[in-house]
């Protein structure tokens, strides 16, 4: 019998489609993948240790650096957790603006997902079209908070500054253009037979395995489990909007793409409803710059981040600084499913699986 030996190659941390420093050690038998072991930790900044020496208000900009692609979502998660811990009431207008900003960040994150998936499969033009559409959201963030990506726009008790006058027309025109944008992605990418051939049936994940491995967010919904924290455990004012949760059928790379594509449309609907109901009023509750939550109180608050369930577990010892702050990062947990979906596939499918699980290593390594 032909004597073959296994080959171990490293899809190194600097690989173009490594999403920020993921090192996958792939054990190959010819073209077939025997095992794919992800190694993380290359971008570890021990944010949780930093949190212990910063006051609650000072830590806000650090949370934007966790999932730097879903711009406002991690910051909203942290700020709501602290408000729950310290029992702070957020004015209506701030809640609505947070929903708008959160959903815009989700759309921007999903657009980058589609773009980076396209370039991982070789269609550089696909990436540039997605980045061009995402640029409109970046401009909106820039005009409201002054920063395109790492915008520390949320504050404990509300938001930093009110919306500039030119923001509302920009959002309305963007939301109106979403169907046209999706039709173009359909034409260029999804309709393309080569694209479908590279994604359909790749990296299958069953519903039980997904739940057992803690995979959440669009990756879980692609396996047919209709579980979205905005519906399951509504936080903020998400119970006032009606939107569906897109669900896939067989949990492969194609469904993970289609679920995110559908989510962009749903987020557009949420933004439209939020814009219609946007009340006037102040944008920030009276919160002292330094405040001390109750001793021994702890809270685990979780939101539906762009990559999955993003949770903050904060323990207070009565001081002005959090005693312990743990971030439950969806990318960190989703990556555990990478070996599961890659075993038995081909070498090129590892790239597809990494791209469709959409990990952000800044968040995974904290």
């Amino acid at each position, binding site marked *: 019998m032909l004597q073959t030996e296994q080959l171990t190659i490293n899809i190194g941390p600097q690989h173009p489609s490594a999403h920020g420093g993921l090192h996958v050690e792939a054990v190959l038998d010819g073209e077939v993948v025997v095992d794919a072991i992800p190694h993380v930790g290359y971008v570890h900044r021990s944010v949780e240790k930093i949190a212990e020496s910063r006051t609650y208000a000072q830590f806000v900009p650090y949370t934007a650096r966790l999932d730097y692609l879903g711009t406002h979502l991690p910051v909203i998660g942290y700020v709501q957790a602290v408000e729950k811990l310290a029992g702070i009431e957020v004015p209506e207008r701030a809640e609505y603006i947070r929903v708008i900003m959160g959903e815009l960040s989700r759309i921007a994150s999903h657009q980058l997902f589609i773009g980076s998936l396209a370039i991982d499969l070789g269609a550089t033009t696909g990436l540039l079209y997605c980045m061009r559409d995402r640029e409109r959201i970046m401009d909106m963030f820039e005009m409201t908070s002054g920063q395109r990506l790492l915008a520390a726009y949320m504050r404990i008790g509300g938001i930093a500054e009110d919306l500039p006058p030119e923001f509302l027309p920009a959002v309305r025109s963007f939301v109106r253009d979403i169907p046209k944008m999706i039709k173009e992605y359909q034409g260029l990418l999804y309709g393309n037979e080569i694209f479908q051939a590279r994604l359909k049936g790749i990296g299958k994940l069953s519903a039980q395995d997904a739940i057992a491995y803690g995979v959440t967010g669009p990756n879980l919904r692609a396996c047919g489990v209709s579980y979205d924290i905005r519906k399951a455990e509504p936080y903020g004012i998400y119970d006032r909007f009606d939107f569906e949760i897109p669900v896939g059928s067989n949990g492969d790379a194609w469904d993970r793409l289609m679920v995110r594509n559908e989510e962009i449309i749903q987020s557009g609907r949420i933004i439209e409803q939020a814009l219609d109901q946007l009340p006037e009023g102040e944008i920030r509750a009276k919160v002292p710059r330094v405040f001390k939550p109750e001793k021994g109180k702890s809270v685990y608050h979780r939101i539906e981040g762009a990559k999955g369930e993003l949770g903050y577990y904060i323990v207070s010892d009565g001081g002005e600084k959090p005693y312990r702050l743990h971030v439950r990062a969806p990318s960190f947990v989703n990556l*555990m499913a990478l070996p599961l979906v890659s075993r038995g596939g081909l070498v090129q499918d590892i790239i597809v699986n990494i791209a469709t699980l959409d990990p952000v290593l800044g968040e995974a390594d904290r």
Partner: protein
Amino acid sequence: MSSQQAVIEDISNTWGNQIEVLEDEFFAGVKVPLQILPELFRKIRDEHGFNYLANLTAVDHQDRFELVYHIYSIPDNRKLMVKADVDHDAPSAPSAVSIWPTADWQEREVFDLMGIRFEGHPNLKRILLPDEFEGHPLRKDFQMKG
């Protein structure tokens, strides 16, 4: 499938005195001794349908470590918090990997940053820090040099 309250009753009848029910306005939870963790987890997973371990972390209270588990049941979304104390000098705890595979990396992270060994974990190695790193940064007594 039983409601949240029924789950806590069921747990407290089976273990009675060892259990201490925590009143927490956001999260229904129980404080349990370390040894009964595997049984408890298997019980709530099989009998009460808690199939999703969302978060597993540890808190260093200087005199003791405290393991915190946040467990949910998909899809009907009941939730339970389980806390367990681990003594500070030789911190070790039973691993939950055999019950929820998602615990694999989260336990490795707690071992890496906090230094709690998990018995029965398939490959307990550092996950975020380089292997030759000494010390566990998230411990209160870990002094940040410089």
